[in-house]
């Protein structure tokens, strides 16, 4: 057991750090985590990494992966967090990409993977439906298979998806649809379709969340015609892809490196804010909250490292990743809560943001402006991607066998 980084690993870190310093777009400095970026800004770093060959480190090398060890990937994440870069969107890289290279046909791989690697195709996820939540097996969106006048086979898709993150920018979406309404078990009879978001019959409608953001959407599908060769995996066996993807989605969700940056930010804010005439960080109770966060984050960090080591030793991402999801989101939410506590009165103003050319000054210090919306919006992390209650259920069943 040796938890220090090897000289090779340290050299790798230097390489990464230098690359980021030299190549990360100046205009996006410290933009990681900002919810108000446009499409081009959100893709810029991804595209630079695509050119370098570093956009999909976890993929098999034949599809563009880097072949890095888990420790190297850990260092990669740490350095990106340290520089607060805008991370590649997960929908292609961590979600549909792995499904396509695992279950897709050679044609599908050739057609879809390069766009994900290059950061030119924006993907969104059509899983959740109104009233279904984490219970994917009860989904209602229907896909009927027909042969069209052109002699080709299509699915005609009808239904509604919800909580579709950033669908307003998406080129493509991956959808779970019901192809056999008579299947014996509810999770049977589901298929996994790739759908061009410009196909007629698709309507995207924003859902505004508590922080005032337009981050999620409802997606309506009204007689949407999807060529059969855009189905991944076998018909009625989409559940296999869905389960695989859910396990993949959870890995990396611990967010350790970003939370470290978050804690440093709290310390900065609390060194500026005054409490009884002294920097807030000198308030022993505030300081204790920071200390407790650091302790819990260290515990999470080394738990993640142990999980990564387990993966390197051949265990795939398993139910242990639920621990990372639960503890990771708890810490993120505590950080958001503590920022809001730190900023005091200036957490209350509702900063709607000002357009370019609008030179009205902002209210209170800059760091206070998004404190409340980020806290409110952050409540989603313990709900989405399988709520923390669902995750505990997974651990109870899969790990403890209760």
């Amino acid at each position, binding site marked *: 057991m040796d938890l220090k980084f090897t000289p090779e690993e340290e050299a790798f870190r230097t390489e990464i750090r230098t690359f980021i310093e030299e190549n990360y777009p100046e205009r996006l400095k410290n933009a990681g985590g900002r919810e108000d970026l446009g499409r081009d800004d959100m893709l810029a770093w991804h595209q630079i990494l695509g050119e370098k060959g570093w956009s999909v480190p976890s993929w098999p090398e034949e599809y563009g992966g880097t072949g890095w060890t888990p420790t190297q990937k850990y260092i990669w994440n740490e350095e990106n967090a340290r520089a607060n870069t805008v991370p590649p969107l997960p929908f292609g890289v961590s979600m549909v990409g792995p499904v396509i290279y695992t279950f897709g046909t050679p044609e599908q791989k050739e057609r879809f993977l390069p766009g994900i690697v290059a950061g030119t195709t924006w993907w969104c996820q059509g899983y959740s439906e109104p009233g279904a939540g984490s219970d994917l097996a009860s989904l209602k969106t229907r896909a009927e298979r027909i042969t069209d006048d052109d002699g080709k086979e299509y699915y005609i898709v009808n239904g509604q998806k919800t909580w579709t993150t950033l669908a307003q920018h998406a080129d493509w979406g991956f959808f779970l649809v019901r192809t056999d309404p008579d299947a014996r078990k509810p999770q049977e009879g589901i298929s996994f379709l790739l759908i061009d978001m410009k196909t007629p019959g698709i309507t995207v409608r924003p*859902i505004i969340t508590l922080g005032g953001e337009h981050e999620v959407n409802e997606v309506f599908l009204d007689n949407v015609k999807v060529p059969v060769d855009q189905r991944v995996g076998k018909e009625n066996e989409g559940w296999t892809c869905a389960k695989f993807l859910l396990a993949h989605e959870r890995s990396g969700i611990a967010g350790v490196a970003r939370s470290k940056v978050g804690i440093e930010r709290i310390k900065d804010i609390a060194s500026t804010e005054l409490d009884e005439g002294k920097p807030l960080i000198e308030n022993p109770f505030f300081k204790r909250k920071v200390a407790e966060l650091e302790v819990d984050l260290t515990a999470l960090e080394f738990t993640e490292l142990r999980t990564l080591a387990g993966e390197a030793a051949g265990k795939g991402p398993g139910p242990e990743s639920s621990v990372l999801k639960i503890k990771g989101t708890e810490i993120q939410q505590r950080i958001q809560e503590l920022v809001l506590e730190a900023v005091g*009165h200036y957490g209350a103003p509702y900063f709607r943001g000002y357009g370019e050319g609008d030179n009205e000054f902002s*209210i209170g210090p800059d760091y206070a402006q998004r404190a409340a919306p980020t*806290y*409110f919006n952050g409540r989603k992390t313990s*709900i989405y991607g399988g709520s923390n*209650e669902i995750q505990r259920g997974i651990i109870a069943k899969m790990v403890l066998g209760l």
Partner: protein
Amino acid sequence: MNFDFTETQTMVRDTLQRFLADRYDFESRQKISRSDAGWSQDIWKAFAEELGILGASFSEELGGLGGGQIENMIVMEEVGRSLVVEPYLSTVVIGGGFAREYGKADLIEEIIGGETRIAFAWAEPQGRFDLNYLETSAREKDGGFVLSGHKAVVRDAPSATHLVVTARTSGDVADEDGVSLFLLPKDTKGVSTRDYPLVDGGVASEVYFENAEVPASALLGEAGKAAGAVRKVVDEAVVGLCAEAVGCMEQMNKLTQDYTKERKQFGVPISKFQVLQHRMVDMFMEAEQARSMTYMAVNRLPDSASAAQAKVKIGKGLTYVGQNAVQLHGGIGITDEYAVGHYFKRATMIEGQFGTTDHYLRRYERLALED
């Protein structure tokens, strides 16, 4: 010892509840909160004229219903239950509190009538929750005073006709001595505001005093001796916030219980899941204890340690109930469209108003444990 309400108190509560059910459902509230003004003149007028509740907490000689802080508590609870954005706390509890303190019968009359609305300008950018931290100064000039300074996040200033302002007439920046209190029309020359909405649906302003001249009559009480009265009225406001919190928590609990009974997962209402049941029990217990603490604190006014205790217990309860109400609603809990998220936002802001849980714990420790 008894927990009973008088007939008048019961009437105040019932009429207000009926009125809000009729005219202040969630959609109406959202419309009002999102209007340019951010509050409703009509509702305020109805409070004054149809319901007469603006006078509930004042003595009968002054045209009130003969009540006091218990009446304020009753109203504030309904303010919390319906997310009312109109300035009852600022105008009646705080403005009225100062008027009572300094025997300003005319001001009370105007408050009861609805024509005068007050905002309390106390906080400063560097002062956090210290009521005595005042960089804003008032110096004597020609028998009157000249005010200079910047007040931060003054709730309800956009709807106010008058400001009650704390300013320093002597002493060092955080001294208790030298705190003075002024009542002035918002349109006093030298007073400027920048108005903005708040995350919880309310409104506030930054208020700037640039050599604003006020007459001697604007001074409440004696120059430099207002700290005690400020503390007393703020404690009354804190208890008012506790009552608002009770209404807010109980409504979040109701929304959550109703939702979980209706919403199905894996074929059963999620209210049947034991983990969610126990969570809702803990939320219920927080609300019950919040109510107990509010009753305790209102009865022990002007005991400052009791107000602090209540704020602490209720601050923790607000966080617990708010976060879990959203969590148990799942996705829709964090949408702008559903009510529960807006209760959560208001709950979050109450927790920090006039000081966070940490602040009031320290205050309680100093008052009760460091003798």
